[in-house]
Protein backbone atom coordinates (compact mmCIF):
# COMPACT_ATOMS: atom_id res chain seq x y z
CA UNK A 1 0.00 0.00 0.00
CA UNK A 2 1.06 3.56 -0.20
CA UNK A 3 3.58 4.76 2.30
CA UNK A 4 5.11 8.10 1.72
CA UNK A 5 6.44 10.84 3.75
CA UNK A 6 6.12 13.04 0.77
CA UNK A 7 2.69 12.49 -0.77
CA UNK A 8 -0.56 13.99 0.40
CA UNK A 9 -2.01 12.57 3.58
CA UNK A 10 -4.95 10.92 1.84
CA UNK A 11 -4.11 7.97 -0.35
CA UNK A 12 -4.54 8.96 -3.95
CA UNK A 13 -4.77 6.29 -6.58
CA UNK A 14 -4.18 6.74 -10.27
CA UNK A 15 -4.00 4.33 -13.20
CA UNK A 16 -0.27 4.86 -13.63
CA UNK A 17 0.86 5.47 -10.08
CA UNK A 18 1.90 8.97 -11.09
CA UNK A 19 0.35 11.90 -9.28
CA UNK A 20 -2.13 13.86 -11.41
CA UNK A 21 -0.45 17.21 -10.92
CA UNK A 22 2.99 15.83 -11.70
CA UNK A 23 1.75 14.31 -14.93
CA UNK A 24 -0.02 17.54 -15.80
CA UNK A 25 3.16 19.53 -15.26
CA UNK A 26 5.13 17.28 -17.61
CA UNK A 27 2.41 17.47 -20.27
CA UNK A 28 2.46 21.24 -19.92
CA UNK A 29 6.27 21.31 -20.20
CA UNK A 30 5.99 19.20 -23.36
CA UNK A 31 3.73 21.85 -24.83
CA UNK A 32 6.13 24.61 -23.77
CA UNK A 33 8.80 22.95 -25.93
CA UNK A 34 6.68 23.86 -28.94
CA UNK A 35 6.30 27.42 -27.69
CA UNK A 36 9.98 28.10 -27.16
CA UNK A 37 10.88 26.07 -30.22
CA UNK A 38 8.87 28.47 -32.34
CA UNK A 39 10.45 31.54 -30.77
CA UNK A 40 13.96 30.13 -31.12
CA UNK A 41 13.28 29.21 -34.75
CA UNK A 42 12.04 32.70 -35.52
CA UNK A 43 15.25 34.05 -34.03
CA UNK A 44 17.40 31.67 -36.05
CA UNK A 45 15.50 32.59 -39.18
CA UNK A 46 15.87 36.32 -38.74
CA UNK A 47 19.16 36.73 -36.90
CA UNK A 48 20.87 38.07 -39.98
CA UNK A 49 18.00 40.29 -41.11
CA UNK A 50 19.36 43.50 -39.72
CA UNK A 51 19.06 45.59 -42.87
CA UNK A 52 22.44 47.09 -42.21
CA UNK A 53 21.75 47.90 -38.62
CA UNK A 54 23.16 46.40 -35.46
CA UNK A 55 23.03 42.66 -35.01
CA UNK A 56 23.24 40.71 -31.78
CA UNK A 57 26.83 39.68 -32.30
CA UNK A 58 27.78 43.31 -32.81
CA UNK A 59 26.56 44.27 -29.36
CA UNK A 60 26.67 41.28 -27.08
CA UNK A 61 29.06 40.64 -24.24
CA UNK A 62 29.69 36.94 -23.92
CA UNK A 63 31.51 37.08 -20.59
CA UNK A 64 28.62 38.99 -19.03
CA UNK A 65 25.97 36.68 -20.38
CA UNK A 66 28.09 33.72 -19.31
CA UNK A 67 27.95 34.86 -15.73
CA UNK A 68 24.19 35.33 -16.04
CA UNK A 69 23.81 31.86 -17.47
CA UNK A 70 25.92 30.39 -14.71
CA UNK A 71 23.73 32.15 -12.14
CA UNK A 72 20.58 30.62 -13.59
CA UNK A 73 22.21 27.22 -13.80
CA UNK A 74 23.14 27.35 -10.14
CA UNK A 75 19.60 28.33 -9.25
CA UNK A 76 18.59 24.87 -10.43
CA UNK A 77 20.94 23.45 -7.83
CA UNK A 78 19.49 25.58 -5.06
CA UNK A 79 16.00 24.59 -6.22
CA UNK A 80 16.72 20.91 -5.91
CA UNK A 81 18.36 21.47 -2.53
CA UNK A 82 15.18 23.20 -1.44
CA UNK A 83 13.20 20.15 -2.46
CA UNK A 84 15.58 17.84 -0.62
CA UNK A 85 15.17 20.03 2.45
CA UNK A 86 11.38 19.85 2.60
CA UNK A 87 11.45 16.15 1.84
CA UNK A 88 13.40 15.56 5.02
CA UNK A 89 11.29 18.03 6.98
CA UNK A 90 13.79 20.85 7.25
CA UNK A 91 11.66 23.99 6.97
CA UNK A 92 14.53 26.32 7.76
CA UNK A 93 16.77 25.02 4.98
CA UNK A 94 13.77 24.90 2.68
CA UNK A 95 13.30 28.63 3.06
CA UNK A 96 17.01 29.30 2.72
CA UNK A 97 17.24 27.48 -0.57
CA UNK A 98 13.94 28.82 -1.89
CA UNK A 99 15.09 32.32 -1.20
CA UNK A 100 18.47 31.59 -2.77
CA UNK A 101 16.75 30.30 -5.89
CA UNK A 102 14.51 33.34 -6.10
CA UNK A 103 17.46 35.67 -5.56
CA UNK A 104 19.52 33.96 -8.22
CA UNK A 105 16.53 34.24 -10.53
CA UNK A 106 16.23 37.92 -9.75
CA UNK A 107 19.94 38.34 -10.38
CA UNK A 108 19.49 36.71 -13.75
CA UNK A 109 16.60 39.00 -14.62
CA UNK A 110 18.55 42.04 -13.50
CA UNK A 111 21.42 40.93 -15.67
CA UNK A 112 19.05 40.60 -18.61
CA UNK A 113 17.62 44.05 -18.07
CA UNK A 114 21.08 45.56 -17.79
CA UNK A 115 22.19 43.75 -20.92
CA UNK A 116 19.16 44.93 -22.82
CA UNK A 117 19.77 48.52 -21.82
CA UNK A 118 23.27 48.30 -23.26
CA UNK A 119 21.95 46.74 -26.46
CA UNK A 120 19.35 49.44 -26.89
CA UNK A 121 21.96 52.06 -26.26
CA UNK A 122 24.05 50.53 -29.01
CA UNK A 123 21.16 50.62 -31.43
CA UNK A 124 19.97 47.02 -31.22
CA UNK A 125 16.32 47.34 -30.30
CA UNK A 126 12.92 45.80 -30.88
CA UNK A 127 12.46 48.32 -33.66
CA UNK A 128 15.91 48.51 -35.17
CA UNK A 129 15.31 45.41 -37.23
CA UNK A 130 13.46 42.13 -37.28
CA UNK A 131 16.66 40.58 -35.99
CA UNK A 132 16.36 42.76 -32.93
CA UNK A 133 12.68 42.07 -32.55
CA UNK A 134 13.22 38.30 -32.69
CA UNK A 135 15.91 38.47 -30.03
CA UNK A 136 13.91 40.59 -27.65
CA UNK A 137 10.67 38.63 -28.08
CA UNK A 138 12.46 35.36 -27.38
CA UNK A 139 14.34 36.60 -24.34
CA UNK A 140 11.34 38.50 -23.00
CA UNK A 141 9.11 35.44 -23.16
CA UNK A 142 11.80 33.55 -21.31
CA UNK A 143 12.19 36.36 -18.82
CA UNK A 144 8.46 36.45 -18.24
CA UNK A 145 8.54 32.75 -17.47
CA UNK A 146 11.40 33.30 -15.03
CA UNK A 147 9.46 36.10 -13.36
CA UNK A 148 6.39 33.93 -12.91
CA UNK A 149 8.70 31.32 -11.42
CA UNK A 150 10.16 33.83 -8.98
CA UNK A 151 6.66 34.81 -7.87
CA UNK A 152 5.82 31.18 -7.23
CA UNK A 153 9.05 30.62 -5.30
CA UNK A 154 8.41 33.63 -3.10
CA UNK A 155 4.87 32.40 -2.52
CA UNK A 156 6.25 29.06 -1.39
CA UNK A 157 8.65 30.92 0.90
CA UNK A 158 5.76 32.82 2.41
CA UNK A 159 3.71 29.67 2.85
CA UNK A 160 6.58 27.95 4.61
CA UNK A 161 7.11 30.95 6.88
CA UNK A 162 3.44 30.72 7.90
CA UNK A 163 3.61 27.01 8.53
CA UNK A 164 1.44 26.31 5.52
CA UNK A 165 3.99 24.16 3.73
CA UNK A 166 4.46 21.01 5.77
CA UNK A 167 6.48 18.03 4.66
CA UNK A 168 3.36 16.32 3.36
CA UNK A 169 2.94 19.10 0.82
CA UNK A 170 6.43 18.77 -0.57
CA UNK A 171 4.96 18.02 -3.98
CA UNK A 172 4.15 21.71 -4.34
CA UNK A 173 7.88 22.42 -4.16
CA UNK A 174 8.61 19.53 -6.47
CA UNK A 175 6.22 20.69 -9.19
CA UNK A 176 7.23 24.33 -9.06
CA UNK A 177 10.77 23.03 -9.13
CA UNK A 178 10.02 21.21 -12.38
CA UNK A 179 8.79 24.46 -13.87
CA UNK A 180 11.89 26.27 -12.63
CA UNK A 181 14.28 23.69 -14.06
CA UNK A 182 12.46 23.86 -17.37
CA UNK A 183 12.98 27.58 -17.52
CA UNK A 184 16.65 26.88 -16.87
CA UNK A 185 17.01 24.31 -19.64
CA UNK A 186 15.31 26.64 -22.10
CA UNK A 187 18.04 29.12 -21.27
CA UNK A 188 20.67 26.43 -21.84
CA UNK A 189 19.31 26.10 -25.36
CA UNK A 190 18.99 29.85 -25.87
CA UNK A 191 22.49 30.57 -24.58
CA UNK A 192 23.99 28.11 -27.02
CA UNK A 193 21.90 28.82 -30.10
CA UNK A 194 21.54 32.56 -29.68
CA UNK A 195 24.83 33.65 -28.13
CA UNK A 196 27.47 31.00 -28.57
CA UNK A 197 27.17 29.58 -32.04
CA UNK A 198 29.13 31.52 -34.59
CA UNK A 199 27.64 34.71 -35.93
CA UNK A 200 26.29 34.45 -39.47
CA UNK A 201 28.52 36.10 -42.00
Amino acid at each position, binding site marked *: *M*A*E*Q*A*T*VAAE*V*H*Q*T*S*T*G*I*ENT*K*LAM*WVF*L*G*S*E*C*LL*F*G*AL*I*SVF*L*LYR*NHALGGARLHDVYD*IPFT*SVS*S*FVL*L*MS*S*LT*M*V*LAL*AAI*QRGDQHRLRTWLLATALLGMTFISGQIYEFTIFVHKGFTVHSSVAGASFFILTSFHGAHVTVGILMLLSLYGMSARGMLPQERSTAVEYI*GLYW*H*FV*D*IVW*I*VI*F*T*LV*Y*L*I*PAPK
Partner: protein
Amino acid sequence: MAAGGNVATKDTHAHPNEKIYIKVALWLGAITAAEIAISYIKMPDPAKIVALVFLSVIKFAAVVGYFMHLKFDNPALRKPFITGIILAGSVYTIVLLAFTLHSNTPK
Protein backbone atom coordinates in the same frame (compact mmCIF):
# COMPACT_ATOMS: atom_id res chain seq x y z
CA MET B 1 -0.09 1.17 -17.99
CA ALA B 2 -1.75 -0.90 -15.34
CA ALA B 3 -4.31 -3.25 -16.82
CA GLY B 4 -5.34 -4.32 -13.39
CA GLY B 5 -6.13 -2.24 -10.40
CA ASN B 6 -5.05 1.29 -9.79
CA VAL B 7 -1.65 1.98 -8.39
CA ALA B 8 -1.09 4.07 -5.35
CA THR B 9 1.28 6.92 -5.99
CA LYS B 10 4.52 6.62 -4.19
CA ASP B 11 8.07 7.81 -4.15
CA THR B 12 9.24 5.12 -6.51
CA HIS B 13 12.71 6.41 -7.01
CA ALA B 14 16.05 5.98 -5.43
CA HIS B 15 16.73 9.52 -4.38
CA PRO B 16 19.99 11.03 -5.42
CA ASN B 17 21.35 12.66 -2.35
CA GLU B 18 22.56 16.23 -2.09
CA LYS B 19 26.12 15.25 -2.85
CA ILE B 20 25.07 14.01 -6.26
CA TYR B 21 23.19 17.22 -6.95
CA ILE B 22 26.24 19.29 -6.14
CA LYS B 23 28.39 17.05 -8.28
CA VAL B 24 26.01 17.49 -11.21
CA ALA B 25 26.05 21.23 -10.66
CA LEU B 26 29.83 21.29 -10.72
CA TRP B 27 29.86 19.37 -13.98
CA LEU B 28 27.31 21.77 -15.39
CA GLY B 29 29.57 24.65 -14.47
CA ALA B 30 32.57 22.95 -16.02
CA ILE B 31 30.73 22.21 -19.24
CA THR B 32 29.52 25.80 -19.42
CA ALA B 33 33.10 26.98 -19.02
CA ALA B 34 34.15 24.63 -21.81
CA GLU B 35 31.37 25.97 -24.04
CA ILE B 36 32.48 29.52 -23.51
CA ALA B 37 36.07 28.59 -24.21
CA ILE B 38 35.10 26.84 -27.42
CA SER B 39 33.13 29.86 -28.56
CA TYR B 40 36.33 31.85 -28.47
CA ILE B 41 38.61 29.30 -30.08
CA LYS B 42 39.16 29.64 -33.80
CA MET B 43 37.83 26.59 -35.56
CA PRO B 44 35.65 25.87 -38.58
CA ASP B 45 32.07 26.91 -37.95
CA PRO B 46 30.45 23.48 -38.45
CA ALA B 47 32.80 21.92 -35.92
CA LYS B 48 32.09 24.69 -33.46
CA ILE B 49 28.37 24.37 -33.85
CA VAL B 50 28.45 20.61 -33.41
CA ALA B 51 30.62 20.87 -30.32
CA LEU B 52 28.50 23.58 -28.71
CA VAL B 53 25.22 21.86 -29.45
CA PHE B 54 26.59 18.56 -28.19
CA LEU B 55 27.68 20.11 -24.90
CA SER B 56 24.39 21.92 -24.41
CA VAL B 57 22.51 18.67 -25.00
CA ILE B 58 24.53 17.08 -22.21
CA LYS B 59 23.68 19.93 -19.87
CA PHE B 60 20.03 19.72 -20.89
CA ALA B 61 19.94 15.98 -20.26
CA ALA B 62 21.70 16.34 -16.92
CA VAL B 63 19.21 18.91 -15.61
CA VAL B 64 16.25 16.93 -16.93
CA GLY B 65 17.55 13.60 -15.69
CA TYR B 66 18.85 14.57 -12.27
CA PHE B 67 17.34 17.84 -11.16
CA MET B 68 13.98 17.17 -12.75
CA HIS B 69 14.34 13.59 -11.61
CA LEU B 70 13.19 12.05 -14.87
CA LYS B 71 15.92 9.43 -14.74
CA PHE B 72 14.52 8.01 -11.55
CA ASP B 73 10.82 8.51 -12.08
CA ASN B 74 8.17 6.37 -13.70
CA PRO B 75 9.24 6.02 -17.35
CA ALA B 76 5.76 6.97 -18.50
CA LEU B 77 6.53 10.49 -17.37
CA ARG B 78 9.15 10.85 -20.09
CA LYS B 79 6.68 10.42 -22.91
CA PRO B 80 4.94 13.80 -22.98
CA PHE B 81 8.18 15.71 -22.63
CA ILE B 82 10.22 13.75 -25.15
CA THR B 83 7.32 13.92 -27.58
CA GLY B 84 7.36 17.69 -27.25
CA ILE B 85 11.09 17.89 -27.86
CA ILE B 86 11.09 15.58 -30.86
CA LEU B 87 8.04 17.21 -32.38
CA ALA B 88 9.44 20.70 -31.92
CA GLY B 89 12.84 19.67 -33.24
CA SER B 90 11.36 18.02 -36.32
CA VAL B 91 8.80 20.56 -37.44
CA TYR B 92 10.90 23.62 -36.80
CA THR B 93 13.89 22.08 -38.57
CA ILE B 94 11.68 21.50 -41.58
CA VAL B 95 10.41 25.09 -41.46
CA LEU B 96 13.94 26.49 -41.29
CA LEU B 97 15.00 24.18 -44.11
CA ALA B 98 12.07 25.39 -46.20
CA PHE B 99 13.36 28.92 -45.77
CA THR B 100 16.98 28.22 -46.45
CA LEU B 101 16.92 25.58 -49.16
CA HIS B 102 14.67 27.24 -51.63
CA SER B 103 13.17 30.57 -51.00
CA ASN B 104 12.03 33.44 -53.11
CA THR B 105 12.57 35.98 -50.39
CA PRO B 106 15.77 37.97 -50.26
CA LYS B 107 18.24 36.72 -47.69
